[in-house]
């Protein structure tokens, strides 16, 4: 009976991923009949990834780190918060603007990891506008102003 380890699960996922990539690589058309075809190198790499996945599945279980001292619920809630922040940042970055999104992300992460409120609020209200000024004025990066476009320079 094969023991299910994290390495083996990752290996199985890599095998599955390699099949998807190989199918995608097979669909790349060759238009110039010289050199190697555009799909050959990706196909080779996908196959190699699959072989490495098989190696992870089939090899004897390696010395694995014990589960972290962090409770599962805490770990999952941390990852869920990160995922929520990632989606929020992607969706709200242009409509709300960099400064509000940056401040909200800072406060969310700070609260999660136990920052003290006064210090966190001070940093969240000072750092994003300072970065905005630096990038817009010095580096000429058009950071979206969003809600604060009338207020920010």
């Amino acid at each position, binding site marked *: 009976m094969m023991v299910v380890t*994290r*390495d083996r699960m*990752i290996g199985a996922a*890599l095998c599955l991923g390699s099949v998807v*990539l190989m199918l*995608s*690589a097979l669909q*790349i*058309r060759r*238009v110039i009949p010289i*050199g*190697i075809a*555009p799909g050959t*190198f*990706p196909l080779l*790499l996908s196959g190699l*990834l699959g072989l*490495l996945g098989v*190696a*992870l599945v089939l*090899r*004897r*279980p*390696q*010395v*694995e*780190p*014990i589960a*972290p001292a*962090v409770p599962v619920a*805490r*770990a999952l809630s*941390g*990852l869920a*918060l*990160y*995922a929520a922040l*990632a989606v929020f*940042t*992607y969706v709200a*970055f242009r409509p709300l603007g*960099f400064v509000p999104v*940056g401040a909200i*992300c*800072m*406060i969310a*992460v*700070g609260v999660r*990891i*136990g*920052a003290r409120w006064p210090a*966190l609020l001070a*940093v*969240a209200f000072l750092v994003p506008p300072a970065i905005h000024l630096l*990038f817009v004025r*010095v*580096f*000429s*990066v*058009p950071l979206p102003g969003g809600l604060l476009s009338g207020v920010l320079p």
Partner: protein
Amino acid sequence: MIETLAAALSLVLQPAPMLALIAGAFFGLFVGAIPGLSATMATALLVPVTFFMPPLPAMALIVSCAAMAICAGDIPATLLRIPGTPASAAYTDEAHALTRKGKADAALGALLFAAAFGGLFGSIVLMTFAPVLASFAIRFSAFEYFWLAVLGLSCVVLVSGNDPVKAAVVLVLGIILSTVGLDTMSGQPRFTFGFVELMGGVSFIPVMIGVFAASAVIRAMVQGARPPDAALPEVRGGLLRSIGATMRGHPAGLVRGSVIGTAIGILPGAGGDLAAWISYAVSRRLSRTPEAYGTGHVEGLVDAGASNNAGLSGAWVPALVFGIPGDAITAIALGVLLMKGLNPGPTLFTANAPLLYAVFICFLIANLLLIPLGLLAIRMARPLLRVPQTILMPVVLVFCIVGSFAINNSVFGIAIMLLFGFIGYVMEENGFPVAPLILGLILGPLVERTLSQASIMARGNIMPFFERPVSLVLGIIAITVWALIILKAVRAARAGRPVAVPRKEPAK
């Protein structure tokens, strides 16, 4: 030669590069001294800033930041027994043992001088050795470059941790990532899965910021922030005296550590941390007092400390001559060079000689700056080490967001960064090294391009890959390295047993 050096010097002695050198050093000092923030992270976070700078100040910023961050990592290692960067891990116990004896000044002074000496030694080797190698490499064809790139990637797998299979997985993923987008030869889209944003490929900068910086934020969100240390030992005077004692008492160790560091740094994928471990071991073996090692002995610190910064400079030799980065930091710097339109390779030494020598001079200045700024950092250690992670991590996240947006003014860059932050976290939590991902992403196009060119030249025949003398030697070495990798993997698989061991801090 003299004219080139004079032209290079006049380029460096301008306000912008000098300011960049000092600013990079201060940033590196701050990030390197704080446990949990690494030299690689410091360099990664600076890349978006360099995007808007001329080439020389951009390189000066990266070079001085990396040198100072590696050196500053010794401060928490000595005072708190927490290595500021992985490069300091080899001698953390030795340095802290000196602190427990009330000799923190001796440890810090020795490490500071050794770092500056090693960095200068490596820079001089780089300045003298790289042009010679470049004049030889100018005759290389696609066959030699193909084998060199394969050899570089192979070494990355061989030296990345104890598990070559996992390192190979990450490397292959990195190379696959480099194939995403329109194929340069045929214009055919590859692995874009209908996303228009992926047509231009995956920029290495958001990926790098994600795996090195955003993953640290996730780790803090999952595992909690490290509390600031309440009891910090005082560093009394005597640092200059300690520097003098190191200079007089350990000249052989300084040279030995620098030579080993530079040699290992040149090996792709090895980097300063491996150099420090090996130097420490060699120093102990050759010492007249090996029994004193581990109890607070300056001799081991000198070798390993010099090796650390020498390795950083050594890693630039293959990066500049062949376009093959020696470690993650050099891979990042290589990306900056490419971003500035300076294609690394032997032609860089003729086409842009003054600029290149100006970068070399920046290396020398950055390593000379280590002593005064390092002394300042040691004096400022107490407030620096008390900055809470609970405030730092939210700031790091905002820098990640703005940095990944600024490259293409695209929210898609942020999405890539956030996704690779998660991937980097998962990888590290499961023992997969992250550096091969970046090296694969950067070296992947070189491997594919040279393979394509070589296959056209060879007309489908495999023999021309081994017909030229240099190509034959490189090919044999690359195949030998792969044989070693397979042997190492088989041995590891046979020795494997389901034993639980305490989780180690992930490499940063």
